[in-house]
């Protein structure tokens, strides 16, 4: 069984994916995760999750290129350029 391990570096921070461990059951997975990702004081907490419990989503439909939905829809650089032109500081 593969278990995915997430670790929290400091209290209050978001957990980030650290890696995975192979183990025959949950108990072994926790012991192995502790040794690999926690024993040097590099983590304040770990989440140990069976890989099957993680659902991946990687399809994001955007058929009509509605770029106003995206953060890159309004390039600030161009806007700034135009504003500077108007102000005569370009």
């Amino acid at each position: 069984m593969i278990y995915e391990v997430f670790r929290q570096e400091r209290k209050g921070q978001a957990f980030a994916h650290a890696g995975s461990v192979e183990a025959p059951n949950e108990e072994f997975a926790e012991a192995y995760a502790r040794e690999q990702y926690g024993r040097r004081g590099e983590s304040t907490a770990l989440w140990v999750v069976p890989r099957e419990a993680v659902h991946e989503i990687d399809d994001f439909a955007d058929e009509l290129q509605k770029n106003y939905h995206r953060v890159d829809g309004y390039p600030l650089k161009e806007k700034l350029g135009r504003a500077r032109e108007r102000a005569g500081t370009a």
Partner: protein
Amino acid sequence: MSAQELLELADDELILGWRNSEWTGIAPLLEEDVAFSSIAQNEIGHARAWYELAARELGTTADELAFDRQPDEYRCSRLVELRLVPDWAATIARHHLYETADAERIAALKQSDDPEIAGLAAKIDREEAYHRMHAQMWFERLQDEPRFTAALDELRPLLNVRDEHTPELAELWQEMTIVRRSVAGATW
């Protein structure tokens, strides 16, 4: 607690730590390699702490106690001396026997009148808790394996033998002290 008793404890941890570290790089599973190597490192760390206490009583140093005695002066149990690589079942059998016996010893030391010994035992016990968990989960996994139960029966009587050592201890001692003996009078 006498210096001799401290030496029994320290010698057990040093020799077992050394033997367990013989699995580094060749344990049955990569994750187990990391875990078992970490346990071995912890044991050697515990040995150092106990040697330091004994050294103060005996007016010497931890390194001298660990490496400058003759093999027949060590006070370790016969159980920890054996070279068990590549027999993983026997290694886990020893690990479980040792951790079970060590748990009792550490529990008693935590009640010591000497605050330094009680404090160190409490600190070490917090690390040993993970060793015991590790030994227990392997025990549960292997307990119905005939090779494992045979190893338990074979190794159990060695636990309390400290006056006679195996030839394997002398071999290990050669390996363990070769660097230190290579330069006479050097301090490392």
